[in-house]
C-alpha cells in the first residue's frame, strides 16, 4: 500500500512537471492566444478586453498556478475553436480513440508475437528473413502514408472496406446506439444492436491495421530476440538433453520466459500509439481525440492543446503503471519498487 502511494505521488509530480512544460511552451513563446481567439479582424481594444477576461494580463507564474488549480478541479478551459469545454470535448471523443487503440494493440500483439516466435523457430531460414523484412518495414512505415495506401487499395480499388469514418451515417440513423459505457462498438454489442456493431467493426479494420504497423514491428522483433535469448540458456539445453519434446520446450519453457520483456515493449508501443492516433485519425476522419488534437494544433487552440497534452501524459503514466503491475505478476523477481 505504501509503495502504491509512493508511485502515485511521484506520478502526480511528473504530471505537474509535464503541465509546467506545456504551459511554458504555450505562454513564453510569442504567439498571442487572445488574437487567436478572436481572429485577425479584432481591434486592439477588443484584444485587450479579452486578455483581461481570459486572465492573460496577469504575471505568468500567477497564470500558471491558476491554471494548475483549475485543472485540478476539473476545469480544463474552453476550446478556442469549438467554444466547448475542453474536458467535455475530450470525454466525448476519448471512447472512439480508446477503441481504436484497443484493436490496434490487439492486432499488434497477435500478429507481432506470433510472427516473432515463428521467426525464432525458423531462425536463419527463409521464413525468418521474410518476417524480418515485414517487421522492419512495419517500424519504418509512416502511418499517414500507410493509411492512404490502404484506403487507395482496399477502399478505392477493391471496395472491401469503407475509406473513412466510424460508422455509416445511415446505420447510425436507422439503428441508433444506446449509450451504456460510451464506447460505441462495445455499446452496440451490449445492447444487441448487431447491425451497428458489424458496421463499426467493418470501419475499424483499416484504421486499426494502420495504427498497429509500428507496434507490430517492434513486438515481432522483440519477441524473436527474446525467444532466441531464452532458447540459448542452459535450462533449455538441459531440458533438451532430458528429451522433452520441442513443442513443450518452445511454447511452455521458452515463451513463458520471453514474455516479461514483451510486456514492456507492449507498454512502450502503446505510448507510440497515443501519438500515432493523431495521424491515423486524421487520415480516416476518425471522430476521436487524435483528429481533435491535430485540429487544435493547426489552429493554435492552446486550452485544447494543453488539455490533450496532459491527457496524453496521464495515459502514458497509466500504461507504464499497468505494465509494471503485469510485470510483477509474470516475474516474481520483479518487485514493485
Amino acid at each position, binding site marked *: 500500500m505504501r509503495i502504491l502511494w509512493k508511485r502515485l505521488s511521484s506520478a502526480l509530480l*511528473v*504530471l505537474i*512537471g*509535464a503541465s509546467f*512544460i*506545456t504551459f511554458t*511552451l*504555450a505562454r513564453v*513563446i510569442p*504567439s498571442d492566444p487572445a488574437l487567436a481567439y478572436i481572429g485577425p479582424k479584432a481591434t486592439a481594444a477588443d484584444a485587450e478586453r479579452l486578455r483581461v477576461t481570459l486572465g492573460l494580463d496577469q504575471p505568468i507564474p500567477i497564470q500558471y498556478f491558476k491554471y494548475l488549480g483549475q485543472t485540478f478541479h476539473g476545469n480544463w478551459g474552453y476550446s478556442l475553436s469549438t467554444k466547448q469545454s475542453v474536458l467535455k470535448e475530450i470525454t466525448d471523443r476519448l471512447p472512439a480513440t480508446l477503441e481504436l487503440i484497443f484493436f490496434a494493440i490487439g492486432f499488434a500483439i497477435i500478429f507481432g508475437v506470433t510472427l516473432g516466435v515463428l521467426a525464432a523457430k525458423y531462425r536463419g531460414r527463409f521464413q525468418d*528473413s521474410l518476417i*524480418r*523484412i515485414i517487421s*522492419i*518495414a512495419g*517500424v*519504418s*512505415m*509512416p*502511418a*499517414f*502514408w500507410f493509411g*492512404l*495506401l490502404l*484506403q*487507395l487499395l482496399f477502399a*478505392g480499388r477493391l471496395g472491401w472496406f469503407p475509406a473513412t469514418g466510424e460508422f455509416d451515417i445511415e446505420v447510425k440513423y436507422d439503428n441508433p446506439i444506446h449509450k451504456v459505457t460510451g464506447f460505441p462498438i462495445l455499446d452496440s454489442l451490449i445492447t444487441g444492436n448487431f447491425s451497428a456493431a458489424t458496421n463499426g467493426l467493418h470501419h475499424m479494420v483499416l484504421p486499426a491495421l494502420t495504427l498497429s504497423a509500428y507496434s507490430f514491428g517492434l513486438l515481432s522483433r522483440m519477441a524473436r*530476440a527474446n525467444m532466441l*535469448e531464452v532458447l540459448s540458456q542452459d535450462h533449455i539445453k538441459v531440458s533438451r538433453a532430458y528429451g522433452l519434446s520441442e513443442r513443450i520446450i518452445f511454447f511452455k519453457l521458452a515463451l513463458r520466459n520471453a514474455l516479461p520483456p514483451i510486456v514492456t515493449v507492449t507498454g512502450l508501443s502503446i*505510448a*507510440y500509439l*497515443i*501519438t500515432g492516433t*493523431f*495521424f491515423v485519425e*486524421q*487520415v480516416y476522419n476518425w471522430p476521436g481525440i487524435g483528429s481533435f*488534437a*491535430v485540429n487544435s*494544433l*493547426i489552429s*493554435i487552440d*492552446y486550452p485544447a*492543446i494543453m488539455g490533450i*497534452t496532459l491527457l*496524453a*501524459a496521464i*495515459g*502514458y*503514466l497509466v500504461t507504464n503503471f499497468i505494465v509494471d503491475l503485469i510485470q510483477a505478476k509474470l516475474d516474481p523477481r520483479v518487485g514493485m519498487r
Partner: protein
Amino acid sequence: MNTRFTSLSFLFKDKLTKFASLTLVTFIIVAIFGPWIAPNAQQGRGTANIDDSFIGPGKAHWLGTDELGRDLLSRIIFGARPALLIALAVVAFAAIIGTALGLIAGFRGGWIDNTIMRMSELFLSFPPLLLSLVAVTFLGPGLINALIALIISWWPWYTRLIRVEARIVAAKPFVEISSAMGVPNRIVIIRHILRNVTTPLIVQVAADLGTVILAAGSLAFIGLGAQPPSADWGLMVAQGRNVIFDQWWISTFSGLAIFLAVLAFNILGDALRDHFDPRISRQ
C-alpha cells in the same frame, strides 16, 4: 575500437543490408547532386506549370505531375536534401546536448546528477513526438522550427543513455586513479569517459536517423513542418491526400521516398548494432 571501424564489410553482410546501403548511397547522391540530376530543376524548386497538372506516370513524367503541374520525380529529388539534413541536424544537436549533460550527470553524481535526470525524465514523460508537435505549434510552422522542436524532445534519450554508460566507466579504477592523480575533471571526462561511451552513442545515432526522418515527415504531413512551395516529402504526401483515389501517384511516391529512406537507416542501424553488440547478433 578503431580497428572495428576500419572494416565496413558489415554494411554489406547480407542481401538486405546491401540493399539498404545502396539505397542510402543513392539518397545521398541525389541529395548532393539533385539540381543536376532532376529532369526539371525549375519545377523541382517549386515553379508551377499549370498546363501539365495531374498527368499520370508515363514517358514524359516518370512519376507523373502534381496539382501545379510540377514533375513529381524532380520534386522528390529536391526533397532528399532537406530530409537528410534535418535528420543529421536533429540527431547531431540532440546527441551533443544529451551527451554533454549525460557525461556531467554520470561523472559528477550528487545533486547535479539528480537535477539533470529529473529534468530529462520530465521531457520523457510525454509520449514520443507529442512534445515536438506542441513545441512546433507554438514556435510556428516551418522547417527550422520543426528542427528545434524535434531537438527539444530528442536530447533526453541521449542523456539517459550516456549517463548510464558514464557511471559504469566512472566507477572503473583507471578513472578513479586519474582523478586521484590530479587530472582535471574536464580532461577525465573527455579523454576517458567520452571515449568509452562512443560505441553506444554511435549505435544510437544510427538508429535515430531514420526515426527523425519519420518524425519530420509526420510534422510536415499535418502542416507543421516545411511550408509550400518547398519540396518536402511529408508535405507532398499531404498535398496528394485529397486526390488519393484519382491522382494516386502524388502521395504514393512521395511517401515511398520517406519509407525507403527510413527503412535504409533502420536496416543499417540494426547492422551496426549487431556489429558492436554481438550478444544480440543475428548470426
